[in-house]
C-alpha cells in the first residue's frame, strides 16, 4: 500500500514537474552577422529554459556538416562566415530543430 502511494506520488510529481514544461517548451533561435565576418547565433526555449550545451550544426547546401558546436554559457554560438551559402541548425531536442538559411542571416 505504501509502495503504491509512493508510486502515485512519484507519478504526480513527475507529471507536475515535467508535464507543463513539455507542453510549453518550444525552440527559439536566431543568427546575425557580426563585424569581421562572424556569425553569432543565439538559442533558447519559449519556457525560458536554457539551451546551453545543445548542438548547433553548420552545413553546406549539400547537407555536409562544415562545423559542429555547442551553445555556450551566454546562450550563443559564433563562427566564421563560410564562403559559400550555408545553413545553421539548432538541435533543441526531438521535434525542436530550427534551421536558418544564410540568405536570412543579416547584420
Amino acid at each position: 500500500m505504501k509502495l503504491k502511494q509512493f508510486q502515485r506520488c512519484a507519478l504526480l510529481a513527475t507529471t507536475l514537474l515535467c508535464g507543463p514544461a513539455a507542453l510549453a517548451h518550444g525552440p527559439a533561435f536566431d543568427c546575425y552577422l557580426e563585424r569581421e565576418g562572424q556569425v553569432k547565433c543565439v538559442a533558447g526555449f519559449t519556457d525560458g529554459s536554457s539551451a546551453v550545451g545543445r548542438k548547433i550544426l553548420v552545413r553546406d547546401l549539400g547537407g555536409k556538416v562544415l562545423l559542429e558546436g555547442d551553445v555556450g554559457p551566454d546562450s550563443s554560438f559564433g563562427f566564421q562566415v563560410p564562403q559559400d551559402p550555408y545553413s545553421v541548425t539548432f538541435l533543441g531536442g526531438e521535434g525542436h530543430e530550427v534551421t536558418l538559411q544564410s540568405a536570412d542571416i543579416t547584420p
Partner: protein
Amino acid sequence: MTYKPLLHAVAATTMCLAGSAQAHFQLLYIDDTALPRAHPLELAAVFTHPFSGGPTMAMGAPRMFTHIDPHGERTDLLKALRPVQWQSRDNQASAYRLSLPREAVRTLGDHTFLLEPEPYLEAEEGLYIQQFTKLVINVGGVPGNWSEPQGLPVEIQPLGKPYANWTGGVFRARVLADGKPVPFAKVEVEYLNNDLDLQRNAFGANAHVRAPQASFNVQSLYADDLGIVTLGLPHAGWWGIAALDIGSTKTYNGKTLSQDAVLWVQATDMK
C-alpha cells in the same frame, strides 16, 4: 433660429463633459510588441488622450529614456530621441520619436523601454502630471524579465506578459510606488482608439470603436488591497493602464505634482 444658441450651448457642454471623461496618457507606442525576429524599431512617445485621438499635450524633453535588454543591460537612449510635431484629432503638439536599429534588439527575449517625462503643467487644474511609462516587447518568444520591477519611483508591474495577450483575455498587474504595492490605487484604463501613422507623425482619422456615453472613454477602477488591478482586453490593439498620483514626490515648481505609472499592453486577435 431662436433655439440655435441653446443647441450650441448643449453642444459645448457635451464636448466639455466628454473632455472631462478622458484621461491624459503618456503613450509609448510601437507597431508590434511580439516580434518573431528582430527588426528595426520605430517608437513614438506622445502625451495624449488615446481614446479620442487627442487633444495632445506638448511634451518637454524627457528626463530619462532607457532600453533594458534581455541580459538586464541598460542603454540610455535620450540622445537618440528626436522631437516631432504630432498631429492629433484637433491639434498639433510636440512629441518624440525614436528609431532603433535591428542590432539594438536582436538578442532573444524581453526588451523593456522606460520613459520618465518632464512634468507637464495642466494649467486648467493648476497641477503637474508626470507619467512614468513602461513598454515591454519580446523577440523570438524567449521569456525574460517582463515581470520584474525596474526601479521606477512609480511603476506598474505586469503579472502577465504584456506582449502576449489574446483579445478577450484578462490582464493583471500590480501597482508599485517605491517598489511597494499600493493598495486601492486609483487606476484608469483607456483604449488607443486610432491607428498611428508613423510616417506622418499623426493619429489616423478613423476611430476603431465608438463609446455609447462619455463614461466609456476611460474605465476607472481601483486596485485591490494588494495593489493588484485586473482588467479585460475586449478589443484588439493597445490598452493603456495608468495608476494615478501614487508617487511620494507631491510638489513641483510650487504646485501639486501627480506622479502616475503607465503600462501599455497589446491585445491580439485569435485568427
